[in-house]
């Protein structure tokens, strides 16, 4: 560096940036951070502020104020409480079904399937992720509608589908988010060293015991990582309920219904899914599973 002064500095701007990493960092980060904080975080903050505002019941116009009533409503109106509990139940059911399907799939892909079949299955599981969110919802609607595929398939057995209701919402959400669970679980099972299986069977464990005592404990972090997606995506969803749930309402349904009529209530109710997701993320973080995502 001491010889530097011998040269004529032909690139003053570049040298300046090279010598000042802080300036370099700030110039890299300023634009994206201005965007995310200025556009998104400010919007979330304004949403929180709006939750305290008043609304004119006739014109639906909001006016600034400090009013705790919107929050009190969210926690006391029975319909709102019931919807929060129902949504939580749906999101947990979706997560549970995803785990129950992902573990056998992962074991099959990682330990039984031949390499070529494994690759095909990996693509087959990933592909529907990109087939379009709304498209998949209306596809499920077509399958479970009165004159739909499910009733046609089950007619010889004398079974009729339940029609659009909570079980179909759970199925639709499982359909939407299953790959988010299947992929991390499969990857985790593949990473288990094969000699653990040998050791387990040398000690006399049968297949099921090995799965239960060796595989499951080792893939818990992957299951938690996957459940962050299946849980929070289901929790905030409302179009699945709208199109495959009949009269089923979820948290999102109430937020969406209120955003034009009564923005402060919509804003206050938005804090519920935010709180659920943040709590879930914090619990998941404690287990150290988030590093795997």
């Amino acid at each position, binding site marked *: 560096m001491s010889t530097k002064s011998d040269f004529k500095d032909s690139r003053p701007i*570049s040298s300046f*940036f*090279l010598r000042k*990493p802080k300036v*370099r*960092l700030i110039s*890299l*980060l300023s*634009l*994206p*951070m201005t*965007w*995310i904080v200025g*556009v*998104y*975080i*400010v*919007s979330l903050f*304004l*949403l929180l502020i709006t939750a305290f505002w008043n609304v004119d019941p006739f014109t639906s116009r909001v006016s600034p104020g400090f009013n705790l009533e919107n929050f009190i409503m969210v926690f006391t109106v029975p319909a709102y409480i019931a919807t929060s509990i129902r949504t939580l139940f749906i999101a947990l059911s979706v997560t549970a079904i995803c785990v129950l399907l992902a573990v*056998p*799939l992962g*074991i*099959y*892909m990682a*330990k*039984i399937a031949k390499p070529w079949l494994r690759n095909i299955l990996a693509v*087959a599981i990933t592909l529907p992720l*990109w*087939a*379009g*969110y*709304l*498209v998949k919802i*209306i596809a499920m609607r*077509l*399958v479970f509608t009165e*004159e*739909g*595929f499910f009733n046609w398939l089950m007619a010889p057995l004398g079974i009729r589908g339940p029609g659009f209701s909570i079980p179909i919402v759970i199925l639709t959400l499982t*359909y939407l988010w299953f790959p988010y669970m299947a992929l991390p679980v499969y990857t985790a099972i593949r990473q288990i060293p*094969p000699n653990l*299986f*040998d050791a387990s069977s040398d000690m006399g464990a049968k*297949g099921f015991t090995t*799965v239960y005592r060796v*595989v499951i404990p080792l893939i818990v972090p992957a299951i938690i990582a996957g459940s962050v997606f299946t849980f*929070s*995506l289901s929790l*905030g*969803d*409302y*179009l699945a309920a709208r199109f495959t749930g009949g009269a089923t309402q979820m948290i999102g349904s109430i937020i*969406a219904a209120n*955003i034009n009529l009564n923005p402060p209530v*919509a*804003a206050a109710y*938005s804090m519920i*899914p*935010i709180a659920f997701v943040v709590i879930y993320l914090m619990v998941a973080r404690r287990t150290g599973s988030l590093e795997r995502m």
Partner: protein
Amino acid sequence: MLRLSRLTRVALGGVVLFILFFMYTPLMVLILNSFNESQISGWPIESFSTKWWEFARSYQPIRDALLNSVLVATGAMVIASILGTLVAFAMKGFSFFGKGTVNILIVLPIALPGVVTGVAFSNTYSNFLTPMGFNIGYFGMIVAHSTFCIVMVFNNVFARLRRMNPNLQEASADLGAGLWQTFRLVTFPQFRTSFAAGALLAFALSFDEVVVTIFTAPPGVDTLPLWILKEVGRPNQASVVNVVATVVILLSLIPVYISQRLARAQEDER
């Protein structure tokens, strides 16, 4: 090796077949129904025809919606590519106070439920910006989409930068290249495939998005998913919706396919 009885293996295979059936049947039912001659979708399909495809091709609202979708996705892709790449460079080259926070900020727009993101934007636009005399209109939709697309570009570019050899940049500087010249001739060629892959994923994500769009689209403007949404709400579900849905599947899969190919090409390069 994991020792499983023959019966267990067969049972596991059965579960896998069931999962594949569960994942692909709805899409097949939908795609086949786009060739249903009847106006109302259902199963089994009585007779097939391409009449709804021809109808959709010349139906103006669908064309407008397609144009809007492409415009919004392109805008979001361009903005997200620039912002995502900048963040990726900052996160790669420096360790600084608040790095974890920056990471969370990037992921947050996609981690929070779409309805919350949508309502937050809609609230800002209509309860704050409009009263201040600033009508954001069409651009509001692009702003919202760009925000949750940043993470796609960031993830791809960051993953590539992490595996890049930093000595090359230093060598370039030692040889007298300026920052821009180094970026153009040394750094960019090394990550351009990841950059393109991330940008395509951002395009696909935006093209497919509906919840945030519901709340941020100005009145009377439809994207393709928004158009589907409005049509499905009507009592007699016309088969033409399935045509548009099939188009959405294809147009989201093509960018993803290309991006996978790019990623693979990059693996081979190394």
